[in-house]
């Protein structure tokens, strides 16, 4: 996908790519770099690519950095390529822009013939030697390279060294010292380069504070903010880091975090914990969700307030474990036998991930039904700098919940016999939920169809079944009034109207920014809540449009199919991707231009 660089000539941003063998701390290096940029008031957007191998494969990490108030997405062209080994240079040198720079170790790589010095600035940095001289260890080669990047871009060194110091201060001050020495040496090499490198990164004064987080950190934070009590998971890429995130904070925040024996246990435990009244969540990727399906249905019929993170990767089956895809939308909508209300929300970025997560807990409690947060590898794995979350906005809405006291104080929840009706048929479908411990709250939370008490035998009576089934399904109406609406932006008088869901919003935003700059008129809608589907809003969006397009990261066109099914409306154009890579904004830009 070699496309022109739509960022244009006078762009303020730089895209830096660091590549090397797996297991060489590439990701950590990229994150350190990003952190020091953000501390300097710049904004960043990272992209990591790695195979499902601990070592031996090839890893790459990109940091796009800009002084502008927001970096919307990663981009494909590379301004500075840091090749920690020869393979990286060979693999990625073609991605360098005209005038870009290659940082490499002259003892490892011969750039002769690899680059044309007319077009690419060669920056030799003897990484090994620097590290050896500083008495450091091999992994510090990264740090030397980071120093060179800073030097090359005239970025004040102290942001980097401060960042390194903060990072290592706790572990061992001598290591911090060595890192600083290595970075400083690398900086020298980077700044004294002979060829002209036109880009420079200056700190932004008085920039508002930024958070540097990936999607899993955002989801985890949202869950913590919501007052989560129990988090259960079995590791699975890209959800694993969310387990580590929660586990690292369990005692401090009073959360029980359980690495379970499998995903079946995780989901069942979460339903059990929800019965106990804890806010409970599990998260996994598609394969683990497959194993959760049965208990997901249990949550539906037992009306359990649970939150499930489904962070998808490229399938089917084990598929491409470390690569992204948006192909589990329909699976999320239809998983489990029988019919029950569910909510599916798909955050597009880290800000939404935080917000939708705490909101998911409210929805689960208000609706007493499972809520799915549908993310993907592209979101989970990559950090960007974002505005500080609005912690004040977080609310805890637990819906019709009785936590203490005696059910006699809630006479409307009792049957004629004075006993508590856990599944009382109500207009909005939601019954008052009394927690274990509340006097008089005997109940059966049931995987069988059941009557209002929760008893299973009576569930077989046709009228009871109908009443309970319809009661549950009625919750979808309530849900429609509670769930986050789609997000629209762009031209008021568009030539093309584009729909997407989830993380595709990021490249789309970037592509649209470029198009708007060039005067093209595009309007976009991100369908935030996938179920219940915002039929009216989507129909209205499509209804008046000149040309319509759906962009989604799968083969079959799942969002498009959903639009067709719910709105009975077709779309004119579509862009799909299913090679494990996220959409690039260049690709989206190109594709929109074709349609325009």
């Amino acid at each position, binding site marked *: 996908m070699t496309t022109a660089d739509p960022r244009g000539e006078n762009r303020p941003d730089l895209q830096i790519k660091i590549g090397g063998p797996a297991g060489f701390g590439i990701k950590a290096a990229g994150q350190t770099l990003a952190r020091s940029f953000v501390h300097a008031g710049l904004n960043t957007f990272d992209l990591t690519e790695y195979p499902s191998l601990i070592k031996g494969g090839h890893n790459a990490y990109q940091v796009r950095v800009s002084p502008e108030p927001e970096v919307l997405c990663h981009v494909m062209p590379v301004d500075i390529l840091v090749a920690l080994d020869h393979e990286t240079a060979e693999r990625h040198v073609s991605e360098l822009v005209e005038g870009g720079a290659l940082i490499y170790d002259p003892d490892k790589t011969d750039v002769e013939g690899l680059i044309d010095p007319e077009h690419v600035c060669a920056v030799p940095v003897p990484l090994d030697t620097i590290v050896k001289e500083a008495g450091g260890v091999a992994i510090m080669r990264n740090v030397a390279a980071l120093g060179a990047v800073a030097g090359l871009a005239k970025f004040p060194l102290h942001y980097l060294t401060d960042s390194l110091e903060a990072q290592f201060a706790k572990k061992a001050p001598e290591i911090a010292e060595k890192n600083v020495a290595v970075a400083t040496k690398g900086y020298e090499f980077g700044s004294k380069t002979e060829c002209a490198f036109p880009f420079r990164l200056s700190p932004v004064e008085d920039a508002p504070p930024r958070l540097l987080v990936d999607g899993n950190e955002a989801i985890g934070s949202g869950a913590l903010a919501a007052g989560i009590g129990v988090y259960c998971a079995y590791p699975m890429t890209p959800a694993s880091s969310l387990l580590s995130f929660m586990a690292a904070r369990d005692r401090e*925040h*009073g959360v029980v975090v359980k690495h379970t024996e499998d995903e079946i246990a995780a989901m069942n*435990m979460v*339903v*059990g*914990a929800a019965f*106990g009244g804890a806010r409970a969540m599990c998260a996994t990727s598609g394969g683990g969700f497959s194993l959760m399906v*049965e208990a997901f249905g249990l949550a539906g019929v037992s009306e359990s307030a649970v939150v499930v993170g489904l962070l998808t990767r490229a399938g089917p089956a084990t598929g491409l474990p470390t690569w992204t895809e948006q192909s589990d939308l329909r699976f999320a909508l239809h998983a489990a036998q029988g019919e029950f209300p569910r909510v599916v929300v798909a955050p597009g970025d880290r800000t939404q991930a935080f917000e939708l997560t705490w909101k998911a807990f409210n929805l689960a409690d208000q609706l007493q039904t499972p809520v799915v947060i549908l993310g993907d590898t592209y979101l989970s794995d990559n950090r960007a700098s974002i505005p500080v979350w609005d912690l004040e906005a977080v609310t805890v809405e637990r819906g019709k919940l009785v936590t203490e006291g005696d059910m006699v104080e809630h006479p409307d929840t009792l049957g004629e016999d004075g006993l508590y009706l856990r599944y009382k048929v109500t207009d909005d479908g939601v019954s008052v939920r009394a927690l274990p411990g509340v006097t008089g709250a005997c109940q059966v939370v049931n995987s069988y169809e059941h009557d209002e008490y929760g*008893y299973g*035998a009576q569930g077989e009576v046709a009228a009871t079944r109908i009443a309970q089934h319809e009661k549950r399904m009625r919750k979808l109406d309530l849900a429609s009034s509670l769930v986050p609406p789609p997000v629209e932006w762009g031209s008021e008088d568009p030539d093309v109207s584009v729909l997407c869901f989830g993380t595709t919003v990021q490249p789309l935003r970037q592509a649209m920014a470029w198009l708007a700059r060039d005067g093209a008129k595009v309007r976009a809608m991100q369908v935030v809540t996938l179920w219940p589907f915002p039929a009216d809003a989507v129909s209205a969006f499509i209804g008046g449009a000149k040309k319509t397009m759906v962009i989604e990261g799968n083969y079959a066109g799942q969002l498009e199919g959903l639009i067709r099914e719910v709105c009975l409306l077709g779309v004119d154009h579509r862009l799909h991707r299913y090679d494990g890579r996220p959409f690039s904004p260049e690709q989206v830009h190109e594709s929109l231009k074709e349609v325009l």
Partner: protein
Amino acid sequence: MPTVKDFETPNKPTWCPGCGNFNMFQALRQAYELTSQDFEHLAVVWGIGCHGNGADFTRCQGFHALHGRALPAATGLALSNPELTVVVEMGDGDGYGIGLGHFVHSCRRNIDMTVVAHDNQIYGLTTGQASPTTEHMMKTVSTPTGVLEEPVNTIGLAIAEGATFVARGFAGDVPHMTALFQQAIEHKGFAVVDVFQPCVTWNKLNTFAWFRERVYKVEEESGYDPTDRAGAMALSLTTFHDMACTPEQCKLPIGVLYREEGRPTYQDGLPQLDEPLWKRALAPRDLTEMVRGFM
């Protein structure tokens, strides 16, 4: 405090007349009375099977879970509220078949919980297929030429994997069962009571009469030491038997086969579980400090 009768619901038990579940139900209610359970804090989780129909008949905080998944559901419940007494009733197909992994991992956890297995050596509710504890070579509808597997050594498994109270009961002896259930509930840690529960409809081999001729109480044997782990594991091997074994050949020990006091429970390792966790969700958690770490 509620008494035996109080633990009933308006629903009449629907087990087949003569089913071993009636006696277990009786013994359990007695144990609840003896251990002073109250309705609000006695949480019972059932699997799916005939045994699970007890969910309709027991007044408590009930959870009729999925087939084979009573243990993780119960674990989640226990981990959400330290004030509950958590009891699991599971079937042999349910707990030792489809749910076996959870059983072993729960043993390893020594989670503070009582597990009662309704071990009728058959799938009752689905009409008589072989279960993981069905005798070797027994013929059932799913194994018409005989079960080719050895039955699960439930006792050996539980002891080998870390359960700290492992007992076996017989549904034909209510007072003995009651005492086992009581001890199990009072035990701090993962307590398993595997009960021989004759299924009068589908299991024509392991009947009340068959068991009566074979069971003996370990506590009546002089010298049996339930704290000797290797000894208890060795004894578990004696529960392996053939279809044709005579009462002399297969003696089946019942009673407390293994017990270990003082090992920390899973909950002991969770200082954050010092109160019901719903109390953590009364208002948004203050994350100002944590968020600063992302800046």
